[in-house]
C-alpha cells in the first residue's frame, strides 16, 4: 500500500512541503498542508495552514505509553510474550490509524526517502499566503488518506471534556448493562 504519491502541480490539501519556518533552523521538519482544497483553488485563503511531520519511531517510542510497555525489557531489549503483544497492539493502532488521537501515521516511502512519519495535530502553523511560492512541494498524501487525516484532525480538536459519572453511579449502570452476567469468584 502506498500512502504518498508524486507532488501535484500546485499546493493543495495533503501536499507535503518543505520551507516552512518552524523556528528550528536546519532541524525544521517537513510540513503537510491542512488548508481546504477549495479555499486554495479559489484564493479564499489569507494563510496556508500546515502541520508538522515528525519521525514516527522516535515520537512514539518517546511516549509515556511506549516507555511503560518496555520497562520490563532485559538488557538485550527482550520482552516477555505479554509485554511484546501489548507493545505491538499499541503500535498497530498507529500503523492502521484506528484511533483518533494526536498523531496521524503514514509511510512516505518509496516516494520520499525518509522513515515513517506522523502528523502532529498539536504542531500547527499559519503561513502567509504570499509566501506560498517559497515552499517546495515534495510529494502528495494520496486520497483517501488526506480525507482520513482531516477527519482525524477534526475529531481530535473537537473533543469536548465532560464530567465523568462517579464510582457509585458507574456500578449501578454496570449492573444494568451486564444483563445478569457476573464475574466468577
Amino acid at each position, binding site marked *: 500500500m502506498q500512502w504518498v504519491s508524486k507532488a501535484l502541480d500546485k499546493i493543495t490539501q495533503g501536499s507535503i512541503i518543505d520551507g516552512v519556518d518552524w523556528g528550528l533552523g536546519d532541524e525544521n521538519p517537513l510540513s503537510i498542508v491542512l488548508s481546504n482544497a477549495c479555499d486554495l483553488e479559489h484564493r479564499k485563503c489569507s494563510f496556508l495552514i500546515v502541520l508538522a511531520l515528525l*519521525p514516527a519511531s522516535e515520537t512514539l517510542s518517546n511516549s509515556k505509553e511506549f516507555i511503560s510497555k518496555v520497562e520490563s525489557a532485559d538488557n538485550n531489549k527482550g520482552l516477555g510474550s505479554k509485554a511484546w503483544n501489548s507493545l505491538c497492539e499499541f503500535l498497530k493502532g498507529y500503523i492502521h490509524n484506528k484511533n483518533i488521537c494526536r498523531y496521524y501515521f503514514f509511510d512516505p516511502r518509496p516516494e520520499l526517502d525518509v522513515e515513517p512519519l506522523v502528523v502532529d495535530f498539536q504542531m500547527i502553523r499559519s503561513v502567509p499566503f504570499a509566501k506560498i511560492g517559497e515552499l517546495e512541494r515534495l510529494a502528495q498524501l494520496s486520497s483517501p488518506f488526506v480525507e482520513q487525516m482531516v477527519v482525524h484532525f477534526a475529531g481530535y480538536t473537537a473533543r469536548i471534556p465532560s464530567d465523568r459519572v462517579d464510582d457509585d453511579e458507574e456500578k449501578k449502570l454496570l449492573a444494568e448493562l451486564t444483563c445478569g452476567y457476573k464475574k466468577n469468584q
Partner: protein
Amino acid sequence: MNALNLRNITLVAFVTACSTSINANGEDVSGTTMLTTMNRIVSSNWDTGYQVRQEMNIAFPPRKDLKERYCRIAKANWFQEAYHDMSVGDVLSIE
C-alpha cells in the same frame, strides 16, 4: 531588483547559454548538460529557481537530505523536550 526581473534575467541567461552548443567555459551544452546547467542556474537563487522550475516543468532533484535531517530532528533538544515521556493523549477508538 525584484524576483520577476531576476527570473527573467535567469531565463535569458539560460536560453542564451543553451542556444550555442559551446558555453563560456567551453562545455558542450547539448543534451543532458543543458539540465545540469539549468540546475546550477536555478539553485543559485531558490525563490527564482522554484518559479523557473515550475514554469519550465523541471522536476526538483530527488531529495537525499531528508533522512539525515530527520536523524537530527530525533536527537534535537527541542524534540526531546517536547516529546520525551509525553503521553500520546486521549485516544478515541474508531474501530
